[in-house]
């Protein structure tokens, strides 16, 4: 047990360091995005009329402290984020980011996690079945369906669904809430209203994630089913689903769990595009918004950091879980 605690602690500290590294990467990214916060800030202050010279921008940069060396700015940023949990103001909207994101980020995370669960709910049984079944027909058709999720670019899927419903039902299915709930406080009716729309992004994201998950599960299962211990087990009279789940399935689970965090990342990476099309007013949309359109470094940085943080967290958990179910990994990690 002491072993285990020690292992947990090492992983935790590793996660923290990872997070720090990430924050550096993120911050660097934000630096690489063309233009500086100063330019955008000025742009909006002079919404009309007055001309902006390069000098104005320089002056504004000094005001925002953008002239300080990179490391210093990173330091202060990270400091605020880690200790105050404060992301500062958005360049464009000139609003406090913590306030701006508020529940937006949780909504996004919720949608993504839902999609993740959705994908494995399908992938695990189907994958295990596909690996153990002997009927090529069901096998292939099952795979075809789930792979379509991968083959149909999900932004296209979203657009088509949206258009069809527009033409047929005159409702573009866009937005996260219907008008009456848009500004209401969270309560059951609002949540219901939310679900009545959120299913679409969840479905689309989940479907495309399924393909990947399914392939992983199937591959792992085939590898495991091959192992001698399975034959040995059946030689001992263990049969049916017990044989399947306790032996190959359980052992195939390791890598699957291992990659959950990054499946989440993959899903989140696609969320913004969907959000853009379905005009979901959550952080995914904001991310694209701030990256591809307004170049709002501060905002984008905050969102990416939050996302990566949640992924690091998930990875940490999965690592622990993995160690719990696979003693070999535990030994391997403890060295």
């Amino acid at each position, binding site marked *: 047990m002491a072993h285990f605690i020690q292992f947990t602690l090492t992983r935790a500290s590793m996660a923290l360091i990872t997070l720090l590294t990430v924050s550096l990467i993120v911050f660097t990214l934000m630096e690489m995005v063309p233009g500086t916060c100063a330019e955008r800030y000025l742009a909006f202050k002079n919404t009309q009329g007055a001309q902006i010279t390069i000098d104005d921008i320089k002056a504004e940069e000094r005001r925002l402290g953008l002239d300080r060396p990179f490391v210093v700015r990173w330091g202060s940023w990270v400091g605020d984020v880690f200790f105050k949990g404060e992301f500062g103001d958005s360049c464009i909207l000139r609003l406090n980011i913590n306030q701006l994101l508020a529940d937006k980020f949780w909504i996004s995370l919720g949608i993504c996690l839902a999609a993740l669960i959705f994908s494995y709910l399908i992938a695990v049984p189907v994958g295990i079945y596909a690996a153990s079944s002997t009927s090529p027909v069901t096998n292939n058709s099952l795979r075809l369906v789930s792979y379509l999720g991968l083959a149909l670019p999900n932004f296209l899927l979203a657009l088509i669904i949206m258009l069809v419903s527009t033409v047929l039902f005159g409702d573009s299915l866009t937005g996260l809430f219907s008008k009456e709930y848009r500004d209401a406080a969270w309560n059951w009716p609002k949540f219901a209203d939310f679900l009545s729309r959120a299913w679409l992004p969840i479905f689309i994201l989940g479907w495309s994630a399924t393909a990947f998950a399914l392939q992983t599960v199937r591959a792992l299962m085939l590898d495991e089913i091959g192992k001698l211990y399975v034959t040995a087990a059946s030689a001992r009279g263990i049969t049916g689903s017990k044989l399947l789940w306790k032996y190959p399935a359980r052992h195939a689970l390791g890598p699957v769990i*291992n990659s959950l965090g990054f499946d989440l990342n993959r899903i989140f990476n696609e969320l913004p595009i969907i959000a853009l099309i379905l005009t979901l007013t959550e952080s995914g949309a904001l991310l694209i918004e701030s990256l591809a359109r307004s170049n709002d470094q501060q905002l984008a940085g905050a969102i990416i950091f939050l996302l990566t943080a949640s992924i690091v967290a998930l990875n940490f958990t999965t690592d622990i879980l993995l160690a719990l179910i696979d003693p*070999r990994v535990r030994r391997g990690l403890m060295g």
Partner: protein
Amino acid sequence: MALFGKQKTTGVDQKAKEAYFTASQGQLIWARFSSNRSAMIALWALVIMVVMGLLAPFISPYDPTIAGRDNQYENGAPQLPKFWDENGFSPRPFIYATKRTRSIKTNFRWVITEDRSERLYVHMFVKEWPYSFIDMKVDLPGEALDFHAKALTFDTHLFGVEGGKIHLFGTDASGKDIFSRTLHAIWTSLAVGTLGVLISFVLALIIGGISGYFGGWIDSALQMLTDAIRTVPPIPLFMALAAFMPDHWSSETRFFFISIILGFIGWPTLARRIRTHLLTERSQEYVLAAQLCGASSGHIIRRHLLPSFTSYIIVDLMISFPYMVRSETALSFIGLGLKDPVNSLGALMQNVSQADVLLNYQWYFIPVIFFVALVLAFVFVGDGLRDSADPYGGTKK
């Protein structure tokens, strides 16, 4: 190792063992693969598309860029050559000449009418715009790497019509031939994918291999790196890197750069899997054995560990391919990847995502069909390969 597992436990006749000893693993995989119908169909589809892409300039009747636009047939519907109509049969396929009108009444859309009296006959091997199969231009920053190779220039094309133009897949808003664009797009996307996959594969193998085999602090350090990179979503990564692309870069160079980036984004997933696998494998007896025999680490990784999940790597490569192509389209869609006038499937799909197209110019979707086919082909070939390379594939027939 995988091979050994096979004789030990599959039902394949023990005597087949000798055959296996004599046959190379490649032959064996192929033997299995060729008997997997879905995979074979996929493979054929793939081959056909690759060839189409390869010969794109030859097969496509018109220059896919704005230069080849048909200014008399914008947003024109596909034209299918026919052999007969009310005016009788013709051995040589033909299409009709078209007239068009536009006004506020037609909502500013060209209304195109066929002139059935005037036939345009399809001819093979017609002379049209010149093209070169080898036309590689790289002008990275710094003169050193810059070069421009141009060779195999022809101006013969598979087909065309006399006294007009033929558009099998119709045309887009500026009158570019979608058929020609699709062919070129397939090639671009294939190239992007391949480059990306190769790069990420090599990286993954090296880093994952080292990390997984040595474990301990090396592993921890490398994990930190991979984790960090993997946790950053690619889109912003791309965004920032894309900002590096100098204006004067030719579209070829730009696309080259993008595929490299894709590669750099793609590796960690594979790397981490390899590592996990190695962590479990390395504690096995035979590795110890090999070590005792004084085999070098590299040798052990190569000869013992990696083969123990070749199938795994194969399927991973095959999976990651469509993902490369897919990220390309996704990025193009939000305007960070390749875009018009570059011909990539992504760029073409960007055009589809317009309400107007969805409602009125459905033939813009034809490239999408190819994209879907391409991805599916890859996935099924991938699965086919993994089944064939897999010890148990035999029992799955």
